[in-house]
């Protein structure tokens, strides 16, 4: 009797334990509390006014927010801290209705004076690298429900400017309490995350904002951004599990990471394009036909294939095709044609070819590669190129003083509006027309008009014309666009980076 009873007990216990195991595994997967992200460099300032580098903006974007933001696919502009807005008929006054009840991460409510202070500060900061975005502002009047911005001149692109990192709201009381220097080390914003710990050159830990205005997000409690400058080391850390997400995977490493079945590689469309920048104040690049010939002698397809490992596309228009609404689909451009280039050079008065120097950034695999490939491609058309490698600061100095002949630069759009890159390339005063020294007054005036045109259809048509004109001027020759390449452990879910290089973290999660 006892033995039988004992047996039944054992069987019951076994069944119970099996049931419990079944219950546990049938439940929700467990998610990690912290995700470790490996990034290239550390931030210096976390004040959006001063933060100019990609390394800093990646962090400030999680902490600070503005009235509007680019939509997730970056094709338009959507509400963020504002719910809706109206633009006056003369395009001078922008009025925003604010979302009620927004608080900073320390619990203090966002007040009208915070908006006024933040936007005016962005405009008046003499030493801000992004001041241009706020310069159109004449006056800001705000209360807890609305923000009214009056501009100096009518602008159809100002909504785009409002997506910029420095036109976000900060807490005036916090600034008054800690002072200028500490403000950039102790950021206080309305975004999904807030700063928990910052060990310079080692890591930054962000934690969930308990007062975030969106319910239920962000999903993951903490994000730890580790600074790992060396690409190889960063990749090894991902493979060994020391980090969960790797930012900025060099194209050459993608296939190796892909073959690792514990890692998923991601490519995201981007607005990043490389450009061949020619100084039109030096011979022979002062001749427009010569510049156009150079454009014809470049095999952009081959360039994109080699440098971007097949993850790039040739670019003809200055504007990225990710800017779907504004990209010109009827751009008339010259196909790759070496003989045509030679003929054009002869027409321009250089039957024996030309020579000039390209100054490129030393230590950058991408730029050095581009220079070397361009050299061999252009040689076929009788264009002799000398490559000069310069360290970053020396190179900067050279082209900013227009003492270079040619260089290779890149652009990444920050908001879904063409005015960003157009103003920079066309405005002679801002950047000597992107360091090409080409003062095309007609184009400058036309571009200014396009900035003010409120009728969308008309504005699109104007920018189409501008893209054609820039192509014909051939002072800035677009080479190719490429994707952003990231990699992560296959336990990570919802990794997403926008074409404007913003990492969307609200739904980012990782299974344990």
């Amino acid at each position, binding site marked *: 009797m006892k033995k039988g009873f004992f047996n039944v007990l054992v069987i019951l216990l076994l069944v119970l334990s099996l049931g419990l195991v079944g219950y546990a595994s049938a439940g929700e997967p467990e998610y990690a509390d912290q995700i470790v992200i490996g990034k290239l460099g550390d931030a210096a300032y976390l004040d959006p006014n001063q933060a100019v580098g990609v390394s800093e903006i990646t962090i400030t974007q999680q902490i600070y927010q503005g009235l509007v933001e680019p939509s997730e696919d970056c094709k338009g502009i959507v509400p963020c801290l504002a719910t809706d807005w109206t633009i006056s008929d003369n395009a001078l006054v922008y009025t925003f209705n604010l979302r009620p009840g927004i608080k900073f991460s320390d619990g203090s409510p966002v007040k009208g004076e915070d908006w006024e202070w933040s936007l005016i500060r962005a405009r008046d900061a003499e030493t801000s690298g992004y001041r241009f975005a706020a310069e159109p502002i004449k006056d800001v009047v705000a209360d807890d429900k609305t923000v009214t911005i009056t501009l100096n001149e009518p602008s159809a692109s100002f909504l785009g400017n409002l997506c910029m990192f420095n036109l976000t709201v900060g807490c005036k009381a916090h600034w008054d309490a800690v002072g200028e*220097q500490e403000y950039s080390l102790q950021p206080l914003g309305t975004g999904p995350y807030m700063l928990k710990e910052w060990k*310079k050159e080692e890591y930054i830990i962000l934690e969930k904002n308990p007062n975030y205005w969106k319910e239920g997000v962000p999903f993951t409690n903490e994000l730890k951004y580790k600074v790992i*400058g060396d690409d190889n*080391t960063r990749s*090894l850390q991902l493979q*060994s599990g*020391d980090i969960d997400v790797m930012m900025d995977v060099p194209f050459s490493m993608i296939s190796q990471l892909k073959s690792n079945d514990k890692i998923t590689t991601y490519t995201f469309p981007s607005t990043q394009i490389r450009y061949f920048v020619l100084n039109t104040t030096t011979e022979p690049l002062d001749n427009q036909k010569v510049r156009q010939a150079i454009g014809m002698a470049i095999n952009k397809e081959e360039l994109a294939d080699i440098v971007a490992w097949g993850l790039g596309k040739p670019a003809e228009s200055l504007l990225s095709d990710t800017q779907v609404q504004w990209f010109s689909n009827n751009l008339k451009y010259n196909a790759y044609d070496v003989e045509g280039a030679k003929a054009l050079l002869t027409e321009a008065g250089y039957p024996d070819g030309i020579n000039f120097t390209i100054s490129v950034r030393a230590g950058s695999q991408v730029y050095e590669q581009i220079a070397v490939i361009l050299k061999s491609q252009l040689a076929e058309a009788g264009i002799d190129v000398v490559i000069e490698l310069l360290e970053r600061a020396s190179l*900067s100095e050279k082209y900013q003083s227009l003492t270079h002949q040619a260089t290779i630069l890149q652009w990444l759009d920050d908001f879904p509006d063409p005015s960003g890159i157009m103003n920079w390339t066309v405005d002679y005063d801002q950047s000597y027309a992107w360091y090409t020294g080409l003062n095309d007054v007609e184009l400058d005036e036309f571009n200014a008009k396009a900035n003010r045109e409120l009728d969308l259809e008309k504005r699109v048509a104007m920018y189409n014309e501008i893209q054609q004109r820039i192509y014909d001027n051939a002072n800035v020759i677009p080479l190719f666009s490429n994707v952003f390449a990231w990699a992560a452990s296959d336990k990570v879910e919802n990794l997403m980076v926008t074409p404007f290089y913003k990492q969307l973290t609200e739904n980012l999660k990782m299974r344990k």
Partner: protein
Amino acid sequence: MSETSYIFKRILQMIPVMIIVSILIFVMIRLIPGDPARLVLGEKATNASVEAMREKLGLNKSYFVQYIKFIKGILTLDLGRSLTYQRPVYDLLKPRIKVTIMLTLVSTVFSLFVSFPFGYYAGKYKDGLIDQIVRTGALTAVSMPSFWVGLLLMILFGVKLKWLSVGGWGETIFDQFKSLILPGITMSLLTSALLIRNIRNSVVDISNMDYVDFARSKGITEKAVKNRHILRNALISTVTLLLMRMAYMLGGSVITETVFALPGIGKLMVDSIFGRDYAVVQSLVFIFAFLVLAINLITDIIYSFLDPRVKF
């Protein structure tokens, strides 16, 4: 003259050298093209912003005024503010010098553990099998580029075996020393190779000396001959070499630090030069020059203890 007055005289001699070093670095860093203000503000800054930043940083003042500010800062230990890191330079240097000092110590210890036994036996059994192996090994170690060795070590121990983390700097002291194992090995390769050769040659030379034969004929054990006579005398030139290597390592190794993601002063120095961060570069070079002079002095003092023939 007595020892203390010799030391005092040496310390006084350091002062003119430091002054010359400070002038040299001050001028040289400013001669390189590149505007720190523009570098800080980024590519999209207007000329007006850059001008305003230059004013703010005091870059438009005369060289003389800027130099005086630098020297005053050194004397009051207010080393200025780093442009690229937005911290007082002193706060920036302290943890990083600690990392570099720890790395130097760890790789020195590794070098000693490896080179003394191998160097001694290579010298003792000159041209024997051990000698051949050790000499070839040392040559190989010296020929391998450090970043490559570093990566291989990380792949083996970090990714495949998972015994150590792949680079990075630990949180606790224990973790920190753990994270110095692979970089320590990488950095000790060159020092070990140099030390082994040096010890081997010293041992060979000394073993042929009369007093070694005399010691043996007195009947001392081989072990005592080794410790009291051969090694002690070999130490003289080895210690000099070792201290010189330590002085070099204290300047930081940008390659090792980059590959292993260690926050040391090598990478700081290189990054600050690229960023034209005058305050950091000036302070670092000044400190480093001081360290080299100090180590030179310490080497001479130790030398005088080891070699009774040397007197001040």
